[in-house]
């Protein structure tokens, strides 16, 4: 498809963004990413293991020159931690396009939107292009946009829950109010959830657990790839109106 995803003036051919966590091995992760067709992957910033240097390195399996690394602040619970993480990520090699995620609750992993809003403002002023994980609240989405977010990334459901899109109405309202890229982040469970997101008018979806923890991750990676393409095409094609009455598909004239 020629229709590309644009985030912070950069163009990407796939509207599916995938996470690189929870895979059994780096080899499995790299193969699933290839099959998903994604050209953006989320990555985490963590301490180098200085006692075991033989651990496989992400960069040896997924080439950052070919696939865009999207540093993520997963696991941060304060603005301070999130800012520290992303400033370090930038220092690794100039990454400015980042994903901000400030969590507020250890059990449901819902975002702390006060800390998230604060961090978005600071990071945008520092020149970061911030894609922001947020709840599905249209008012908060607007506030994020006002402080300089580069993409709005509302959750479908709690991270890793596989529940699918819980509040389609809110996603639709956010879609109608913003021209920023709208990307569903977290909570998808199966390929059709991605199609629904795209049919709601989202610009993309981010998936990790649903692929990494599927019984057959490679097949699921392909399923999500196709589901995103199908949903986008369906959205652009203009669906028919819903009606409570039947309407025959064959002409009435000429019935014998």
């Amino acid at each position, binding site marked *: 498809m020629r229709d590309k995803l644009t985030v912070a003036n950069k163009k990407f051919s796939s509207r599916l963004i995938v*996470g690189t966590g929870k895979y059994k091995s780096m080899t499995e992760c790299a193969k699933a990413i290839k099959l998903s067709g994604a050209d953006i992957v989320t990555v985490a910033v*963590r301490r*180098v293991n200085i006692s075991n240097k033989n651990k496989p390195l*992400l960069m040896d399996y997924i080439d950052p020159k070919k696939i865009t690394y999207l540093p993520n602040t*997963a696991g941060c619970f304060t603005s301070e931690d999130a800012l*520290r993480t992303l400033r370090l990520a930038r220092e690794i090699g100039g990454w400015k396009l980042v994903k901000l995620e400030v969590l507020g609750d250890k059990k449901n992993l819902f975002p702390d939107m006060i800390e998230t809003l604060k961090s978005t403002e600071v990071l945008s002023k520092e020149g970061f292009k911030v894609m922001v994980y947020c709840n599905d609240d249209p008012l908060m989405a607007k506030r994020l946009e006002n402080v300089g977010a580069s993409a709005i990334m509302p959750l479908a459901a709690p991270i890793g829950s596989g529940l699918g899109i819980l509040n389609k109405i809110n996603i639709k309202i956010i879609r109608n109010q913003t021209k920023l890229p709208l990307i569903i982040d977290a909570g998808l469970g199966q390929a059709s959830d991605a199609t629904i997101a795209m049919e709601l008018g989202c610009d993309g979806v981010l998936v990790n657990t649903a692929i990494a923890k599927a019984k057959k991750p490679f097949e699921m990676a392909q399923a999500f790839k196709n589901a995103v393409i199908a949903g986008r095409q369906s959205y652009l094609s203009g669906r028919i109106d819903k009606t409570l009455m039947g309407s025959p598909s064959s002409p009435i004239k000429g019935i014998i």
Partner: protein
Amino acid sequence: MKKLKKIKIKVNGKIKTIVDKLTLHELINDLKIAITKVAIEFNKEIIDKKRIKKIKLKNKDVIEIVHFIGGG
């Protein structure tokens, strides 16, 4: 022969005993870490990697070396 003075620093949360007058650059090399794939925080301050040759390590310095790993 004069015995080299030893100092204690903290690297990624672990106490490490090293010889005095080592630079941050030498430490990274000793740890066999590919500098292009990491970011370094020195006493809570993010360090421009071009500067690490100039930084001499002192007792109780705290160093964090991070890189990208798989994540969601």
